[in-house]
């Protein structure tokens, strides 16, 4: 079995007096794609927010590669190799693909005082990454993100996570509002990320999309994990739906 990458232990989260998560445990192994499913209000978004540093847990521990870590901000999560990709919020639409890929970690050339961007290198690496992630259309790396389709934007965000060696890529509803072809493209991007050794947590409402790409399914209901070892192929979509809705008892 692959090495354990992330382990969340007894995570509890209160919003005021409302308990959103109760003693949640979640493990992700290296190179594993985990599907996180649950109805609205099940707690999956809150769990992901805790792991990505968007909100702090009220109690509980997070271990990365066996070491306990404090994740208090998105920057902390990124520094610990956890990258979260939201539908729209992760990119700057006015900036080019290359400038977005390297945002915050831009390579420089020439004397340090000049603070000069190494744009040719940024664009060369960006073009190679787009091919690696599976974009077959010839899109110049100088294209602004605003001119890309929803699926292509997801690809850029995934490419960025892969390039900066994020160990875990969290995809929050990456196939929302996408057409059939674009959805298949995003699912292929996820497979490519896994093939290059990255782990993923994949959240989607559409169970069929999850079934196509994940190794294991975790189901949440009312702030707790109710199943964490469902393997697509060994269970049917209907069975998983029953677990999600609580009709499996």
């Amino acid at each position, binding site marked *: 079995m692959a090495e354990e990458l992330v382990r969340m232990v007894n995570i509890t989260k209160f919003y005021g007096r409302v308990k959103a998560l109760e003693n949640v445990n979640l493990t992700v192994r290296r190179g594993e794609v985990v599907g996180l499913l649950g109805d609205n209000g099940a707690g999956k978004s809150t769990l992901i927010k805790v792991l990505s540093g968007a909100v702090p847990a009220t109690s509980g521990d997070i271990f990365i590669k066996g070491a306990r870590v404090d994740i208090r901000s998105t920057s902390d999560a990124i520094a610990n190799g956890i990258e979260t990709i939201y539908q729209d919020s992760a990119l700057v639409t*006015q900036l080019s693909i290359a400038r977005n890929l390297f945002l915050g970690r831009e390579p420089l050339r020439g004397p340090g005082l000049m*603070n000069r*961007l190494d744009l040719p290198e940024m664009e060369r690496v960006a073009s190679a990454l787009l091919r690696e992630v599976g974009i077959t259309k010839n899109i110049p790396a100088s294209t602004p993100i605003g001119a890309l389709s929803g699926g292509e934007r997801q690809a850029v965000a995934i490419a960025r996570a892969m390039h900066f060696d994020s160990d875990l890529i969290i995809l929050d509803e990456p196939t929302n509002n996408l057409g059939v072809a674009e959805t298949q493209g995003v699912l292929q991007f996820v497979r490519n990320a896994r093939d290059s050794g990255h782990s993923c947590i994949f959240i989607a409402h559409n169970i069929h999309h999850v079934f196509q790409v994940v190794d294991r399914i975790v189901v949440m209901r009312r702030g707790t994990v109710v199943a964490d070892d469902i393997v697509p192929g060994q269970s049917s979509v209907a069975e998983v739906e029953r677990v999600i809705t609580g009709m499996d008892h």
Partner: protein
Amino acid sequence: MPSLARRLFARPEAGPAILLLLLIVVFTAINPAFLSILNISNTLAFTVELGLIALAMTLLMTSGEFDLSVGALFGLTPVLMWTMFNAGLMSLSMAFLVAIAVAALIGVVNGWFVTALKIPSFLVTLGMLLVARGTALYITDGFPQRTWSAEGQWIAELLVGSVRFGDLRLYMSLFWFVFFAILLHYVLTGTRVGNWIQAAGGNASAAAARGVPVAQVKIGLFVLTAVMSGFAGVISSIRTSAANPNSGTGYELEVIAMVVIGGTALSGGRGTIIGTVIGIFILRLMRNGIVMIGVPGLAYNIFIGAIILGMMALHSWLDRRNQSGG
């Protein structure tokens, strides 16, 4: 070459550049004196003072903020400098440095209110406009400060000394304008800081998540804008031999108009120094040109308003066309 032409016209500077050329052609056709050496010389002298503020404002607006206190600082900084110098407290060059430092401090305060207290820059800088203008009026009792003792001072020569090429008289301020235009264009388009400025204005939370120090970037730009406003005010006061506490009134809106006409987005994320330079010349040539062709000067605002509306419509159309990949 059609794709080159297409790319050229898709740039935000294309529309303003065409308008600027049209203005020059029309004004010169009606009154050939528009392109006379004397008129060019006079126009350049005044243009670059407002222009210096517009250059800094371009970066600030690209980061998603703007500053309404620039006109008040244009008035306050030279008043401070001349008051300290005339009172015999220090040399003119030291008074210049202290006054610029006060402007920088005001920029820090603006930036801190906006980034730490999360108050919109419109409200913060409106308040600072009143504080700065009120301070200038209070310390002068509303009277202009005498500045004639500037003659022969090396700092005055450095800021507004002039050179003559035949009939053409060029002030040092033009050199400063060209210097800062090149420098800030480079910063915005070619540096890591420029990438951060655009990201801070385009999507601040995404930028912060990537480790971009959004607050520091914005505070730095508020300081730059305040310092450039003070610097322009000092240049103007030496050139006109007057430090009037009321000078610069209304400049804030004219500067913002110059920047948006040039193609910088009021909402942030996209900015162009080349566009701003074109915008600066459009507004200054309009002011000069409509008087020269016999249109009453009081009608100036009608033309400026119409140009702003026209340019906004053009930029919005170009944006939509570019986004749709058309």
